[in-house]
């Protein structure tokens, strides 16, 4: 890795940080560089202080770094917020327009460019973010034609006037930026060979749903799940797809169930509080054996918590809600590729086993941009797990909940033939009618539970990086990038470290977990919650007690260095 630059663009909400960020990422991607970028924003629409932080490299990067090499400050507060994180070679660039106000000494060492003035020249104050992007890219050494192409592309949906204004803005910024000397500037590759795909976790989830032949998404807006729906909505014209904003989350999950019952792959996406409202429905999917997929995009709670931040604290909630026991899948992908492939798997597993599947992501994964290098496999066809009249000796004798060895009853669709499909959220007989009989109840519970061994058989073991290491960091979900990089850091610090990462969490693959975890001399849980939720689950399921924990619950993502440092401290 000869290039590893972190650029932070800070400003108030409403200053167009997203555009600056998108442009930077696209230029890097187009140039054939690697990158990953996080979005850190407050729960407000204007003002406050947000930032976009991109890490650019010539080798794959899958986690953010804390030290900032180049800070592009669109407002004064960003200088105050981020200066402490500036690296040795760090540079601050700000708008000259804002240089006269603020505390004394604040502008010390800050390089100013007349961003707003240049924007006005280019076609209006609104293009200030494009000026900033142009300047920033010039400071990094990006060639103008690459920037120009990207800007042209990025605004291609807009009018010619808007495109031209933005090109002019980028050019003015670029010209101005070229005068800035920055130690971190580097030689940009000429090849223009894009490495992998550039997308957010939210994009990956939306694409995964489409690859799974999902045709209905019912949802109620909630950060950080909304971007998945926004991404999906942008593709609506190309697919037989209905996206419906429900009146609340209860409706969303029940609509999803109605759709699945009627034979269409459907999902809903929400976050913790919305998921809480869906839990009764989750139980209905359990007892009616209806294949729904729920994406729970985690954020810190409880209640409203930190609505635009990240966390991983809903694991036991997803396992154990609602009342009584019922089988379900819980999958927590770690990378964007994993998100995509997991969505495809979640639908497949849900339909194969007629059980709900929960995909656990989080704000970090949904809102961050990554380069996906791994396989994202679009299935050639969708297995058909339902039957029709033709598959039945006597359609009029069809029984939705027939007892079978696998516990899975053949599923027919309503109004698809002569077979009547009867589904009921009370305990039911094999024909779907209510029963109060004790024996039948027991058998129905056992029928549902009997799917679990096969469901567990579908669960993949934790993936490991240096699996034979003495010290094993253990995590799940979105932390895989930071975990692996922390391991590399620890190893270069001389520690025999490795990590195990779980995507498949329920039914818990206890044996596989035990095999991987037992080998290590020391196990340290690394989780985005305050109580080491996976640690508790591992103890419950395997008896293995973790030897330490690195827990983060301030709403911010993990940085590899902070994991490594915490591990070093604990193992000293």
């Amino acid at each position, binding site marked *: 890795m000869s290039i590893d630059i972190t650029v932070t663009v800070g400003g108030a909400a409403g200053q167009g940080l997203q555009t600056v960020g998108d442009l930077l990422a696209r230029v890097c991607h187009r140039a054939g560089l690697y990158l990953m970028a996080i979005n850190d924003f407050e729960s407000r629409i204007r003002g406050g202080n947000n930032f976009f932080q991109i890490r650019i490299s010539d080798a794959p990067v899958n986690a953010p770094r804390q030290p900032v090499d180049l800070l592009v400050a669109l407002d004064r507060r960003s200088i105050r917020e981020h200066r402490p994180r500036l690296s040795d070679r760090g540079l601050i660039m700000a708008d000259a327009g804002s240089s006269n106000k603020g505390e004394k000494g604040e502008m010390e060492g800050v390089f100013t460019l007349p961003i707003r003035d240049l924007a006005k020249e280019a076609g209006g104050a609104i293009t200030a973010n494009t000026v900033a992007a142009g300047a920033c890219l010039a400071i990094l050494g990006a060639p103008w034609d690459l920037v120009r192409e990207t800007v042209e592309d990025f605004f291609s949906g807009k009018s010619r006037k808007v495109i031209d204004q933005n090109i002019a803005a980028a050019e003015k910024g670029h010209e101005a930026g070229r005068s800035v000397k920055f130690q971190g500037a580097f030689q940009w590759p000429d090849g223009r060979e894009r490495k992998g*795909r*550039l*997308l957010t976790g939210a*994009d990956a989830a939306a*694409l995964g749903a*489409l*690859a799974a032949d999902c*045709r*209905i998404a*019912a949802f109620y807006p909630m950060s950080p799940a909304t971007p998945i729906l926004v991404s999906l909505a942008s*593709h*609506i014209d*190309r*697919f*037989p797809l*209905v996206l*419906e904003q*429900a*009146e*609340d989350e*209860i*409706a*969303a999950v*029940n*609509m999803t*169930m*109605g*759709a*699945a*019952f*009627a*034979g*269409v792959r459907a999902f809903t996406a929400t976050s913790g509080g919305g998921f809480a409202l869906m839990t*009764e*429905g989750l139980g*209905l999917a359990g007892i*009616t054996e209806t294949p729904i997929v729920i994406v729970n995009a985690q954020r810190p709670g409880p209640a409203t918590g930190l609505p635009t931040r990240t966390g991983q604290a809903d694991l036991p909630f997803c396992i154990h809600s609602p009342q009584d026991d019922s089988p379900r899948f819980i999958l927590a992908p770690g990378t964007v590729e994993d998100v995509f492939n997991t969505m495809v798997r979640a639908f497949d597993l849900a339909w194969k086993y007629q059980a709900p599947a929960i995909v656990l992501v989080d704000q970090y994964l949904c809102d961050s941009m990554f380069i996906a290098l791994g396989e*994202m496999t*679009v*299935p*050639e*066809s*969708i297995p058909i797990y339902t039957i029709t009249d033709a598959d039945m000796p006597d359609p009029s004798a069809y029984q939705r909940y027939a007892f079978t060895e696998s516990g899975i009853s053949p599923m027919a*669709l*309503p*109004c*698809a*033939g*002569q*077979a*009547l*499909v*009867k*589904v*009921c*959220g*009370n305990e039911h007989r094999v024909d*779907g*009618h*209510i029963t109060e009989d004790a024996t039948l109840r027991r058998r129905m519970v056992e029928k549902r539970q009997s799917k679990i061994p096969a469901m567990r058989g579908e669960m993949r073991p934790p993936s490991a990086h240096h699996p034979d290491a003495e010290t094993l960091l253990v995590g799940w979900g979105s932390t895989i990038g930071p975990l692996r990089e922390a391991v590399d850091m620890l190893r270069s610090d001389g520690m025999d470290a490795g990590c195990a990462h779980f995507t498949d969490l329920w039914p818990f693959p206890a044996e596989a977990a035990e095999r991987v975890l037992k080998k290590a001399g020391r196990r340290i849980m690394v989780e985005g919650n305050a109580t080491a939720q996976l640690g508790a689950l591992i103890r419950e399921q395997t008896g293995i007690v973790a030897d330490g924990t690195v827990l983060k619950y301030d709403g911010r993502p993990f940085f590899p260095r902070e994991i490594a440092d915490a591990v070093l401290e604990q193992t000293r």
Partner: protein
Amino acid sequence: MTDVELYHNDYENKWCPGCGNFGILEAMKDALAGLDIPPSKALIVSGIGQAGKTPHFLKCNFFHGLHGRALPVATGAKMANNDMTVLVNTGDGDCYGEGGNHFLAAVRRNVDITALVHNNKVYGLTKGQASPTSDMGMTTKVQGKGVILSPFDGPSVALSLGAGFVARGFAGRMDHLSGLIQAAIRYSGFALIDIFQPCVSFNRRNTWQSYNESVYELTEENHDPADLDAAFKLCRQGDEKIPIGIFYQKETVSFSDRIEVLREGPLVSRTFAPARVQNLLNTY
């Protein structure tokens, strides 16, 4: 016309003898038969309560879901397959209490569903607590001092939300009710029939007798269903004279018809196009 016997089911009926629900059940069968919709072409979605049990007592496809949540399930099912005839059986508690928010949305969404609200003005299955439609002053074991909330009137609220088909029925007028159900099924859009249904076990106020004495049928002479103001007024008539019939009807474009992609056929029948997904993926 299909034979009404086709809808006969031998699953034991669990309602109280004399319950108004029997009238609704028979009217449903009659209406489906009259419209030639065989059991295999209808889907009935229901919530929890005595009303929610209805689909067990006739032969049909059904989804008997959660208390209050029949309408969203029906909406999802209809979105997936808009070729199905979808009916909803729901109680006054189910639809206007626990499920109130879905009722509001269903009217606004105008999905082509027929909603039959079995309005017995009480929570029947849970043994007689007040429901949103209970008369003020009605006492129950938990409302010992009598109900102090003003009653919910489904038709008024539906009208205030711009509903296109609003009717009131009475379980004691089977033929009339069957006619309403048929009109509702034929209507393209959300159709509400609020049905007065005596509960002989828990409601001593709104009885067979009281309804038999007070209901009268709307006719072309005494009401114009295109007149919204008149419809509002029908809702506000006192208990002495209770109009039954179609309060209001106007043409609307149903939910499905507003969605381009559904005009090409039900979602459930479409085919998967992996190449299209791959192409999209390749734009990233």
